[in-house]
């Protein structure tokens, strides 16, 4: 009872990375709290997924297997999650901040009248005392940038359970907890929770396209901000990326200005990346951007403004114009590489 629950997204028998990342995080929080981790696997043809969920730290896997449960539909999945949560009374519930998780989690929180914090960048356990003298032990600190990234807010749910949070893919690390770990499988009686009215929304067409642009796994990312100035100037970044074997990323400001596609956006509302080299061109370094790239192994900033905030997390800060610096980088890379 009062365990940590992780809703696991499963497509064609494959568990989403974000769900494994949440299991890893859930496991470490559970070890701190001395409770168990329970995974929810809702879909169809799920045999075998439990092994992977155990390996990443789950102690109990609830399997709700029914042909009608895949592809994902809001209402039947909500009914199952809400039903199980009412019985099991989790203290913490984690969801991926994906299009699925951001559709499901608010619905569940609304049904349970519990608080939900979106797009957390960090989850910690801590205590709280309020102004009325109430003391709370071991709350979930849900930490996220807010107000356009100008502040970092720590959100708590002192009185309501579960304490719910969503986290974007790539923000937490995924790590096998124990290769040989096993646990308990609980088969969910789907008909107990789901009614025919839950199928009022019907999917009549569905094409799953792989993301055309995927910068998440690129070892080198050349990223541009509003300071790059134009779509044309981004060509310089693409040229450097192609020479170095990397991908082009961007800040939200550059995407909003229409310089590049949204799929390239790095940061809190884009993707989180950890390349071995991140070159930030004309990016001032607002926290919602740096939240998505600060764990890069090496950061080089190119900026006209020697005092740009990005320079504070950079390993190298080049003061200058990208139109001047990038061609020189290309020239000297070509000259010196074998």
């Amino acid at each position: 009872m009062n365990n940590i629950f992780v809703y696991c997204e499963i497509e064609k028998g494959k568990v989403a990375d974000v769900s494994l990342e949440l299991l890893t995080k859930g496991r470490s929080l559970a070890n701190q709290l001395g409770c168990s981790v329970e995974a929810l696997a809702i879909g169809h043809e799920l045999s075998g997924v439990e092994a992977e969920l155990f390996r990443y730290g789950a102690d109990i896997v609830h399997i709700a297997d029914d042909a009608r449960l895949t592809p994902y539909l809001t209402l039947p999945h909500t009914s199952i999650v809400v039903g199980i949560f009412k019985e099991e009374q989790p203290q913490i519930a984690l969801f991926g901040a994906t299009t699925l998780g951001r559709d499901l989690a608010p619905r569940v929180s609304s049904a349970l009248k519990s608080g939900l914090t979106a797009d957390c960048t960090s989850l910690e356990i801590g205590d709280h005392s309020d102004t009325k003298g109430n003391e709370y032990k071991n709350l979930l600190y849900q930490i996220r940038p807010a107000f356009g990234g100008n502040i970092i807010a720590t959100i708590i749910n002192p009185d309501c359970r579960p304490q719910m949070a969503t986290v974007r893919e790539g923000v937490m690390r995924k790590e096998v907890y124990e290769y040989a770990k096993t646990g308990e499988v609980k088969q969910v009686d789907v008909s107990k929770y789901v009614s025919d009215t839950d199928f009022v929304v019907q999917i009549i067409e569905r094409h799953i396209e792989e993301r055309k642009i995927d910068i998440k796994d690129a070892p080198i990312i050349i990223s541009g901000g509003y300071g790059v100035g134009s779509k044309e100037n981004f060509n310089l970044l693409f040229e450097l990326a192609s020479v170095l074997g990397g991908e082009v990323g961007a800040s939200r400001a550059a995407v909003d200005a229409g310089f590049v596609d949204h799929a390239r956006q790095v940061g809190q509302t884009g993707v989180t990346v950890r390349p071995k080299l991140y070159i930030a061109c004309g990016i001032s370094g607002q926290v919602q951007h740096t939240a998505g790239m600060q764990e890069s192994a090496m950061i080089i900033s190119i900026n006209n403004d020697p005092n740009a905030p990005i320079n504070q997390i950079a390993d190298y800060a080049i003061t200058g114009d990208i139109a001047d610096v990038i061609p020189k980088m290309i020239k000297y890379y070509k000259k010196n590489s074998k």
Partner: protein
Amino acid sequence: MTKPLKIVVLAKQVPDTRNVGKDAMKADGTVNRAALPAIFNPEDLNALEQSLRLKDKNPGSTIHILTMGPGRAAEIIREGLFRGTNGGILLTDRKFAGADTLATSYALSCAVRKLDPDIIIAGRQAIDGDTAQVGPQVAEKLDWPQVTYAEEILECTGDKITVKRRLEHGVEVVTCALPIVITVNTSAPECRPRNAKFLMKYKHAKTMSELQEQDTDYYANLVNDRCYLRIAEWGVTDIEGEENQFGLKGSPTKVKKIENVVFHAKEAKRLQATDSDIESLMKELIENHTIG
């Protein structure tokens, strides 16, 4: 076969967090709201456009904007009128203050019950919080189905609506019976500009509070003569909810701590855009196998 629809658009006036200037933060580290212009939340404009297109296709339909906020949020109801909506309701009451997404969705759902629409259309998320929670939370409170991440409402015939969704990995076309809550993505078409005729007709549309702030009775008389200029203002007593579910009291999430953004201090190696600096950097990166 089309039929007239009662549409409610949920919209929010937000500080323009995308254009944060140097004076946006006060010396004590709190946000200086006054320095940020208040705008129509961008994705709510995408939602408004979808509602207007639906009205164009289903003649006789009506659109009302429902928004919660301080008195100045009446501005976005006017912006709606200038583009072709029929009216709007401003939920404004000190008892709504301090609401998190759950308390906000509770207040909105109470107001929606009074309006009794066929369709609710909202932006996916607001730029001041980026949570994307209010749409689904309202749907749950009404016990209505939801379609999130909508890019286009394809058609609405009889009691059935067909919607194209844009997801991370592709697209989905779904169909559902009314009533329904739809939240619209930024990938949906941009909102049409103001219409000159509507601008002339509605430029003096005002809430009662706004009329009371005027020095003359001119506008009050005008609004009395032309009832379409009256923007409704509702407080907690108008929407018949449980008072402990509104505002701060009805908000399970609390803000424990707010930190002004501070970067980890780390000394960056400073370079200039000179040939020698760049060449030595590239050599270093090649030698330590970062590149190449």
